């Protein structure tokens, strides 16, 4: 009898051996050691909040990606691929790569040249204080919620896999993150994110390798998925012609216009959680290269997240169900795909590394949110609205304290998340509330000199209100789905895509209309902030192999090839 079968009959999936415990404890010790080591290099505001702006392209790029590799990426998307098939890979390819390249080549110069410390900080320079206040408060709210999601997810993993108490898991993980971020600031978060990125790959890569061996390669996997679920589960685009033809209940227009053009663009170019990592780059070329390096690795992440979900359909002897049904029936939910696959293939040592990879993923997501929250709270809320002229040391101290307070709020959120049926859908709803309208406002601000401060503020507010309003409408009257998502067959994911699209369009439209009837800023005040009136430094002094556009073409070609292969 295998461990995989044994665990299906027990409440706790696996028992860690002594060597597994050593690996997990060593990880916690190392991340804390890095925090204590870097404390001495986090004395000024520039050090604490922007890591001294001295990160290389590789460090900034891996950190940029790792901050995104939280609960959503690991547990959530592996579960989503079991539920929806390879369609989930859209969130890694068309839903990420074009946006990351757009950030690198088009938007990064404005963020970097303006010397802003945050995305709300850019809004202050471009549109004024009211837009910054609206954006920073909604962002702070979102990051605390997201951090709580990471906490809850990690505690859930530890409870399911190891039988650990969920309260103790939340406490241990949150205290660890609070210590290393409060000590070393963004630099400590970035160092640990790079370490976590490597550990995630080291711990998770064995699952697809061994899974493909068991399934008989890609052709064997496709045959088994077709037999156990449906042939549609292995096609990326060919089933998106009708809402009812694919497991996600989505149309290609939702993927292209909702996901790729709005949610993905909004997240990767204006969510300060990820943009903050790139702002820490040592120069403009490194800042442009970092998202391109991140995009290159992002294309590969489906092999450790999406593939295990498909492999679970092919090889697991049980059927996974939704979170609510799992609680009622005592079965296993979609979100348990990765732990189940880990337990299936990994013996002593490997299991410890796999569990460490999951913990690392959750902690990087948590730390990313906490460090971004700390910066926005300190610079864009506390300094802008509460205490304007304190010393640099005072703001660093506030940064350390707000880290601890942010973690405390996140703990509260973690308990709130427990009542939601699906982690994934919850996260996507948050994006459509805050990020989709923000993208329209920032993009118009960067590309259109005529956009006015009033236009920016009212556009952002209208887009956010429209998104929350549509969400509430469907909650109150489910038949409203046919209007919001254009089809009564649409599932939660599809609804989120279309809601994001409408809220972004609302924000853009209101920004344009209000801008046309209000007074624009003089062009002299827009230098360094807007395309057409900003001089971008040339890169003619470096070889072609060091130019961002060259690597953007390489990554873009890989992106097209992958989409064609899995069409």
């Amino acid at each position, binding site marked *: 009898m295998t461990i995989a079968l044994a665990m299906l009959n027990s409440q706790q999936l696996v028992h860690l051996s002594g060597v597994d415990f050593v690996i997990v404890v060593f990880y916690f010790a190392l991340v804390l050691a890095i925090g204590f080591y870097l404390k001495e290099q986090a004395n000024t505001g520039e050090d604490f909040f922007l890591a001294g702006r001295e990160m290389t392209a590789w460090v900034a790029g891996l950190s940029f990606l790792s901050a995104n590799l939280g609960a959503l990426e690991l547990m959530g998307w592996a579960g989503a691929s079991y539920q929806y098939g390879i369609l989930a890979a859209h969130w890694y390819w068309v839903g990420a790569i074009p946006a990351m390249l757009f950030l690198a080549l088009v938007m990064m110069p404005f963020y970097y040249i303006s010397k802003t410390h945050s995305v709300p900080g850019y809004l202050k320079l471009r549109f004024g204080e009211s837009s910054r206040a609206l954006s920073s408060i909604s962002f702070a709210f979102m990051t605390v919620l997201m951090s709580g999601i990471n906490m809850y997810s990690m505690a859930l993993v530890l409870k399911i896999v190891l039988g650990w108490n969920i309260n103790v898991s939340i406490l241990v993980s949150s205290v660890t993150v609070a210590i290393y971020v409060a000590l070393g600031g963004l630099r400590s978060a970035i160092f640990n994110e790079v370490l976590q990125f*490597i550990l995630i790959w080291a711990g998770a890569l064995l699952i697809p390798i061994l899974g493909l061996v068991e399934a008989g390669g890609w052709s064997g996997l496709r045959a088994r998925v077709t037999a156990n679920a449906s042939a549609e589960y292995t096609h990326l685009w060919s089933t998106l012609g009708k809402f009812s033809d694919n497991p996600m209940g989505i149309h290609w227009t939702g993927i292209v216009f909702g996901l790729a053009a709005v949610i993905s663009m909004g997240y990767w170019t204006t969510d300060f959680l990820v943009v903050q990592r790139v702002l820490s780059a040592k120069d403009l070329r490194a800042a442009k290269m970092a998202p391109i390096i991140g995009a290159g690795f992002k294309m590969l992440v489906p092999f450790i997240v999406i593939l295990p979900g498909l492999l679970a359909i092919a090889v697991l002897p049980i059927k996974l169900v939704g979170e609510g049904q799992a609680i009622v029936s005592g079965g296993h939910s979609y979100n348990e795909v990765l732990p189940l696959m880990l337990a299936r293939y990994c013996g002593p040592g490997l299991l410890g590394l796999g569990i460490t990879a999951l913990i690392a993923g959750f902690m990087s997501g948590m730390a990313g949110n906490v460090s971004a929250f700390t910066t926005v709270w300190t610079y864009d809320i506390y300094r802008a609205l509460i205490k304007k002229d304190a010393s640099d040391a005072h703001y660093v101290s506030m940064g350390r304290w707000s880290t601890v307070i942010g973690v405390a709020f996140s703990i509260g959120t973690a308990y709130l998340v427990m009542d939601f049926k699906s982690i994934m859908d919850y996260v996507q709803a948050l994006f459509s509330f805050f990020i989709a309208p923000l993208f329209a406002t920032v993009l118009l601000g960067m590309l259109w000199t005529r956009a006015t401060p009033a236009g920016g503020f009212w556009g952002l507010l209208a887009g956010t209100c429209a998104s929350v309003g549509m969400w509430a409408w469907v909650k109150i009257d489910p038949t409203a789905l046919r209007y919001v998502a254009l089809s009564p067959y649409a599932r939660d994911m599809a609804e989120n895509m279309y809601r994001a699209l409408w809220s972004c369009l609302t924000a853009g439209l209101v920004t344009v209309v209000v801008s046309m009837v209000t007074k624009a800023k003089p062009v002299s005040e827009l230098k360094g902030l807007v395309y057409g009136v900003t001089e971008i430094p040339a890169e003619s002094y470096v070889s072609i192999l060091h130019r961002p556009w060259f690597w953007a073409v390489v990554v873009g070609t890989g992106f097209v090839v992958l989409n064609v292969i899995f069409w």
Partner: protein
Amino acid sequence: MKPGGSISIWFFVGISLLVNGVLILGAGIYELIHPPEVRVVLFGLHAGIWWGGILTALGAGYSVYFAPGKGRG
């Protein structure tokens, strides 16, 4: 340039891979000599041995190459 001080981030990465690799390799060799009664799927491939070996080699390489005082990073 080493962002953050005199110890490169890649040295920390190397140490982490080295320690994990040695532990996994050791556990894999122990299981080869003393096979457990309850086994994981594909136990016969002894993934712990070759995966632990790869991590050990990578970790050792990074730890030596980016060791403090060598000016790399």
